[in-house]
């Protein structure tokens, strides 16, 4: 277990030494089901993750939870509190919970969570749950990693459907209206329904499931919706098509990550580049010459 935890740290800090490992491991086992949980702060994602873990354990499946939270953009520090909601699983050897910082590097979280999923799958976990707070880029990155993305909403001010940023509704494969024990949840359901009806007709119509995560209510219905979505992915050929799409995403993200890191270093060290920036008063020439002249040297280990 410690080896797994350490490998996740390497992935999290984007250590290039893991390349060989992942070239050996390949993709996650197809049996590993990857569920994304995203939504505004406080809607009950971690409580829901806890309920889902209980559900899977009752069905004899092992589960890993990765909870992604943003680090402070100023200090890099963070407080991760998602584990608090999952304490009852603390000593279960078939449950693994890990907090991961989203350090604000574009594409970095997608790469890190994808590689973490590979590790957890290779380690034998049947299910992986990825929790992300829906306040930035991170939930989009993680949605690309999950097979099924649950968008978690809760009734009440601030979480209203209109409040949700454009581009977020579209990532939902299933809508979860949590805190259905609170007043106003019917209204939230109606708002989502009317919004879905306004949109274009899609081959998958995201179902809306009401839950009370803190009491474990609605979880059977939710998991049934997840199973239906998975069946749709398989029968429509999307599951297979997404495999290659994800690899394409990862390759593009890696190009970005590798070249950004190397470019930063070059721009610090190379006086010619600095001179060029001063002369041009624009970044294009310097960027172009980094890509053209450094080419292969941008790849880690090739300097």
């Amino acid at each position, binding site marked *: 277990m410690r080896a797994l935890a350490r490998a996740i740290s390497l992935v999290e800090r984007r250590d290039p030494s893991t390349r060989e490992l992942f070239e050996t491991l390949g993709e996650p086992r197809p049996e590993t089901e990857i569920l994304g949980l995203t939504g505004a702060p406080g809607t009950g994602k971690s409580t829901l993750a806890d309920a889902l873990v209980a559900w899977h354990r009752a069905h004899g499946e092992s589960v890993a939870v990765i909870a992604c939270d943003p*680090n402070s953009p100023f200090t890099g520090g*963070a407080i991760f509190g998602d584990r608090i909601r999952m304490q009852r699983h603390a000593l279960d050897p078939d449950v693994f919970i890990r907090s991961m910082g989203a350090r604000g590097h574009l594409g970095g979280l997608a790469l890190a969570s994808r590689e973490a999923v590979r590790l957890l799958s290779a380690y034998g976990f049947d299910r992986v749950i990825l929790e992300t707070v829906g306040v930035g880029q991170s939930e989009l990155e993680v949605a690309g990693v999950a097979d099924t993305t649950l968008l978690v909403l809760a009734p009440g001010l601030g979480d209203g459907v209109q409040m949700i940023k454009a581009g977020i509704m579209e990532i939902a494969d299933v809508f979860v209206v949590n805190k259905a024990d609170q007043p106003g949840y019917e209204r939230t359901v109606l708002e989502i329904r009317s919004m879905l009806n306004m949109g274009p007709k899609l081959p998958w119509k995201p179902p809306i499931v009401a839950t009370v995560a803190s009491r474990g209510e609605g979880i059977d219905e939710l998991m049934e919706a997840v199973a239906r979505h998975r069946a749709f992915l398989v029968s429509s050929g999307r599951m297979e098509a997404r495999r290659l799409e994800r690899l394409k995403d990862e390759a593009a993200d890696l190009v970005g990550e590798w070249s950004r890191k190397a470019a930063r270093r070059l721009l610090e060290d190379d006086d010619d580049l600095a001179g060029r920036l001063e002369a041009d008063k624009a970044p294009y020439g310097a960027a172009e010459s980094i890509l053209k002249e450094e080419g292969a040297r941008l790849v880690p280990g090739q300097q």
Partner: protein
Amino acid sequence: MALRIVMAKLGLDGHDRGVKIVARALRDAGFEVIYTGLRQTPEMVVDAALQEDAQVIGLSIHSGAHMTLIPRVMDVLKEKQAEDLMVFAGGIVPDEDIEKLKKLGVAEVFTPGTPLQEIVDYLRAKFPGETAAV
């Protein structure tokens, strides 16, 4: 890479204001704090620290059970071959007990009223260069 610190409230007393204040100070210093909540057992704390790949465990204890619970944490770390993790504690602990705990491998015990900066400086000195790369 940010230093990862698992902070937990050991034992049965239900106050976590103090530990949360320390957690915020450590976050503001650029550390990653994983807060596991109230009423933790030594086994739970060690398991969380191993899953989180933390280098440091920070224990808060005010129940008077520090001489049973903290040594138990050290024992569990030994059982799991994880003695390389650093453990510090905060709480009302008499001087003679602090000595005993240090003999058991606890790195430091911060008593109430310790300035937050002192805890931050202590960790920075123990782990130079381990604040986050922003």
